[in-house]
């Protein structure tokens, strides 16, 4: 995996474990690393986008600092700049998903690690 982000760029951790307030935060962290690992972009390119997003918040930010909001924006910006996922395509897909009826049958299983992989002792 790419180098873990350090210092001011590091994601929130408690007791050494990455802390996600919601599953989507884990997904965006996972996407960024997986895309870099797959060679879709260089990790340093993403890092630069994240630095840029955090610097913008330093200058203009108000309210509580939400690390993963910036992380998500940095990832979207990089993918859009590279023409891999244009901003309008992302916006259109998000709107389509948002208009799903409540209780749609979307499979949420991917938000959870396999239940038995850590439990060889039985």
């Amino acid at each position: 995996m790419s180098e873990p982000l350090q210092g001011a760029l590091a994601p929130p951790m408690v007791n050494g474990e990455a802390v996600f307030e919601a599953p989507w935060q884990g997904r965006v962290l996972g996407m960024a690393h997986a895309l870099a690992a797959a060679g879709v972009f260089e990790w340093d390119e993403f890092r630069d986008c994240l630095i840029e997003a955090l610097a913008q918040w330093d200058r203009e930010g108000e309210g509580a600092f939400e690390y993963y909001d910036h992380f998500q924006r940095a990832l979207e910006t990089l993918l859009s700049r590279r023409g891999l996922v244009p901003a309008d395509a992302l916006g259109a897909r998000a709107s389509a998903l948002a208009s799903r009826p409540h209780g749609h049958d979307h499979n949420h299983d991917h938000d959870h690690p396999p239940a038995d992989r850590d439990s060889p002792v039985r």
Partner: protein
Amino acid sequence: MSDHDHRAIRAEALEALLAERGLLTADAVDRVIETYNERVGPMNGARVVARAWTDPAFRSRLLADGSAAIREFAFPDVQTDKLVVVENTDRVHNVVVCTLCSCYPWAVLGLPPRWYKDPAYRSRVVREPRRVLAEFGVSLEADVEVRVWDSSAEVRYLVLPQRPDGTAGLDEQALAARVTRDAMIGVARL
């Protein structure tokens, strides 16, 4: 719609588009999250182990007084509880448990894995450690003594694994990358 919902949907949309474009799979994302929790957390412990392998004076200090020795690393969350480091050798294999709850040296290992809190692990590793270790894939020769260390709120244990063969040329950082969380609990060998 809350801001979280909005962001969750954007993340879902992005992942779907990346998957459709063949740039990403859900499995790859899952693996990263697991890696973050299993490697980045235990990395502090791995650095301690790697230094003990490369610096005999540090190794002596570590085995004599684990709590004092790890202060040399200035980890951000150094706990004040007593840390005892137990060394694996050709003759002795150490394994750590907390029979009462899930006491764990989190300053060096992050959060415990799920099975560490499992009642089956907590009781069986004391009763039949060889069998439990075999289930983890650690088959010990008959002449190897197994020592089971029961953690408490006052004392936490960290296993110093044996340095793997074929690592003579590696520096401290490269060695640390070889150390796994499970080896530092004692349920794996390197």
